[in-house]
């Protein structure tokens, strides 16, 4: 599979609905300090199920656009991930032999609720894990490296490092 598109609204510094298409090859994300690059990284981690502590927040509600100085805060944060299904890797989740060129995984939080969606319909966290696993995506895997975390594998205690290899085998 590959990421076709990321759609965010109300997530961290992305106040309004923002659509970001992704393509094959090497894409770089650039911009000044504090612009929102790592927030975009967090959005992708968030929709794939990472916890608030891995997203530089103490609680999920801190992920909702807080208004800055000039705006009012958002009511909710939502991120939808569009994943390519042209190789049919997700077909078994689509029901009744149907297929689709792409699937969507979403996650929405308000100050008091947190929901996951698959193809726009509510689903459980466990189902999201299962869907991602079908495409060999591990939200906690070594393919998603947050800022400052590249040497984490070096600093890890050897048993935790071996557990990473357990996950892989």
């Amino acid at each position, binding site marked *: 599979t*590959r*990421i076709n598109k990321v759609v965010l609204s109300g997530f*961290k*510094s*992305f*106040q*309004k609905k*923002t659509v*970001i298409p*992704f*393509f*094959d*090859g*090497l*894409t*770089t*994300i*650039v*911009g*000044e300090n504090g*612009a*929102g*690059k*790592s*927030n*975009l*990284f967090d959005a*992708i981690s968030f929709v794939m199920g990472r916890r608030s502590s891995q997203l530089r927040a103490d609680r999920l509600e801190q992920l909702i*656009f807080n*208004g*800055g*100085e*000039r*705006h009012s805060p958002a009511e909710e944060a939502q991120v939808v991930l569009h994943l390519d299904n042209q190789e049919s890797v997700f077909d078994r989740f689509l029901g009744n032999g149907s297929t689709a060129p792409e699937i969507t995984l979403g996650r929405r939080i308000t100050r008091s609720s947190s929901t996951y969606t698959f193809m726009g319909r509510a689903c459980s966290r466990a189902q999201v894990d299962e869907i991602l696993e079908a495409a*060999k*995506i*591990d939200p906690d*895997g*070594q*393919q*998603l*490296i*947050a*800022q*400052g975390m*590249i*040497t984490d*594998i*070096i600093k890890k*205690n*050897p*048993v*935790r*490092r*071996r557990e*990473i*290899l*357990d996950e*892989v*085998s």
Partner: protein
Amino acid sequence: KRGRFLETLAAVTVQFDRIFKELFQGGTASLELETPGDISSGLLIKAHPPEKEPHVLDSLSGGEQTLVAAAFIFALQEYQHAPFFILDEIDAALDLMNVTRLSRMLRDYAKRLQVIVVSHNEETVRHADRAYGVTMKNGVSQVLALNLN
């Protein structure tokens, strides 16, 4: 399963050493169990850059540690085949020569999987197929597609 773990370890170690040699232009690296054969013991990283005495991993420089970590991550990928890498400023500690080596390797992986990299480094951006610029105005972020030519 003990057998499957040891098989994975062997396969990943071969890749780790190969990728390490490419990033360091020599030297050797390996992954070993603290207690050989005991799959519940920890996993050690042995990294030996060219012309240096293999040493405590901590005494490697910032840039050397980044390259060792990248070699490990890429070695896992050769085994796992995840559909994308999303890497936030992994080039921060690298000098120009090593940014170039790492970027060439990322460009190579980008032929087979999706690679998304956040970077402040012009040399990294030079290797990209496309770029998105993120800007902030009045506390709100916006994303623009940039022309790389």
